[in-house]
């Protein structure tokens, strides 16, 4: 094959490094997805749009002269309340209903958010410039922007912080209890309604962090939400619910896959290949399970 990536093996290192750093960010979003899926049994199609909204918060801080890295603190706080608001308005009515209802309802929220962001922020592709410069590795042949490294480190810090919070705090215990058995938790005095609201808020806050980091490292655009939803869904189904190391590893794997697809197939097929990979993974798992006469649950 006459492709640049096979002629210059150093590009493989470059793509892998980029992919891993990108994948850590995806894993953070997928962690939020796994949390709400496990606890509330809903699939949130608007996940990606929450990410983009979080990104716009950081971008606006950048526009008003504040360093966008502070968005990592501000964005989750705002997004937490946005999440609580969405929960109170819509999600609490779909929690114990059929999963398809939640998919469709959040699809509606996704379209709504997409369009509102398009009105409020315009349809331009924007980027919050952090001015962090780049790091050169291996005799200047691999270029890593410092902002990507920063994003990966912040994601890891938030993920570890959340894991500890879920293990140690009272709310974290309540969330885990509700995830195991909502009815039993209710009987034992857990206010599940509050737990659900908090879970959705935490999920939105995680999206806010990820969005702020994405606005620094990559670009954001009102219509870019759906691919993030699909990526996080994919990561969760590959890793399985409640498998946090799995989420991290499959997130990085997806990042690497995407970078390679970008190099080999071309940028115009990048999003398409992500969606196609989702279909392939689901079909693969379906065939694997059907040998045991089971199906994906």
């Amino acid at each position: 094959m006459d492709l640049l990536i096979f002629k210059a093996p150093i590009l493989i290192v470059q793509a892998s490094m980029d992919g891993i750093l990108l994948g850590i960010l995806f894993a953070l979003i997928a962690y939020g997805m796994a949390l709400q899926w496990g606890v509330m049994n809903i699939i949130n199609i608007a996940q990606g749009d929450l990410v983009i909204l979080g990104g716009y918060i950081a971008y606006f801080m950048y526009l008003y002269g504040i360093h966008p890295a502070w968005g990592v603190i501000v964005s989750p706080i705002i997004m937490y309340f946005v999440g609580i608001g969405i929960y109170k308005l819509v999600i609490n009515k779909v929690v114990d209903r059929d999963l398809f209802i939640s998919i469709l309802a959040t699809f509606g929220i996704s379209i709504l958010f997409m369009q509102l962001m398009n009105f409020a922020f315009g349809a331009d592709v924007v980027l919050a410039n952090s001015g962090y410069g780049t790091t050169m590795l291996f005799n200047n042949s691999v270029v890593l922007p410092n902002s990507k490294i920063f994003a990966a480190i912040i994601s890891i810090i938030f993920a570890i912080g959340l894991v500890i919070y879920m293990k140690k705090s009272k709310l974290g215990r309540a969330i885990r209890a509700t995830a195991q058995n909502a009815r039993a938790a209710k009987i034992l005095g857990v206010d599940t309604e509050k737990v659900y609201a908090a879970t959705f808020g935490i999920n939105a806050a995680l999206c806010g962090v990820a969005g702020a980091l994405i606005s620094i490292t990559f670009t954001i655009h009102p219509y870019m939400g759906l691919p993030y939803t699909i990526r996080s869904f994919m990561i969760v189904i590959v890793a399985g619910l409640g498998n946090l190391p799995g989420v991290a590893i499959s997130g990085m794997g997806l990042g690497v896959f995407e970078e390679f697809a970008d190099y080999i197939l071309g940028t115009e097929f990048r999003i398409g290949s992500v969606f196609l990979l989702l279909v392939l993974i689901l079909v693969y798992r379906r065939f694997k399970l059907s040998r045991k006469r089971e199906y994906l649950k």
Partner: protein
Amino acid sequence: MNKNNLILYAVILIFGLVAPFVFPAFKVQLSILCVLIILAITWNIQGGEMGYNSFGNILFYGLGMYLCASVQVGMFFPLAEWTESGGEKTFVHTPTQFFQGFGVGLAVAAIVPTIVAGLIGYSILGLRGHYFAICTLGLGVAAGEISGGIEIIGAGQGFTTPPFPNIGSLEARGEFFYFCSFVSLVLTFIAVKSIYSTRFKLVLNAIRDNEDKAEAMGIQTMKYKIIGWMISAFFCGLAGGIMGGLVGYIDSTDVAFDGREMGVFMVLMAILGGKGTLWGPVIGATIFHIFKEGFWTFFLGWQYVALGVLIVVIVIYFPEGIMGWLREKYPERFGEVVDEADRKAQVELK
């Protein structure tokens, strides 16, 4: 079929036949309405009757659209040069070529998606519930993204379908496409109605209610699921082909594989009317189209916001749809036997 039903069908048929001459200004809208009803009916076959909620029927619709236009051009002229010239036409179809091409194109647009549905059906339909929904969503979006990168069908800049030939009357274009879509709608309705009166529909309902039990009863569920999906794909592709000619311009993500609009519309229309009924999708699509055009006219620019709110409201507060609501209100009309004493007891319980 009793007398009332016959009169109803006759009235609708006559209305459909005279509508373009009575309301000439609404010809295009009526054609789009016919296409929307076809899409809602076909979605209902596996979404409502089979219980497989698909976001991916847009795949067949877009495939049909591209195939019909490509065949129509490719039969007489080199396709690559046509798409390269974009809006400026270097080749002109004669009327015979146009109609011949369109006819063959529609046939291909209906048959190829059916084959595609059959081929991918075995893999995809093994998934259930929300995995199926998300997988088909991915399929639809992937098709849009990939077709946007293929040069021969116009890639990102779109594909202009052949312009309607000049055959005297200015009204001819609208009338031609109206009758195309109306005839397809009638065919779809007759086909689906006759399918629904056979054992096939009962099997689909059994799959929806409990697939494992249906399998245990000796039904080859996979076979029926694939056939159901193929029927859907056939009419979806047909509708796509007509819509492509009607719109006159095909773009990969905004017209053909428009999962964000058409892909959600068909789900919404079927749910609004009532899933799993014959007339539900028809009523739902009609009401939805009127609402949508109202939104598009009065809230120009805010239409997607209104659409998002509409989806959330319908899904949360109206999941049974219009037919479901009517059924709850007048169960006797739906052939349910109502025991008065039982009903009273239920009222007292409430």
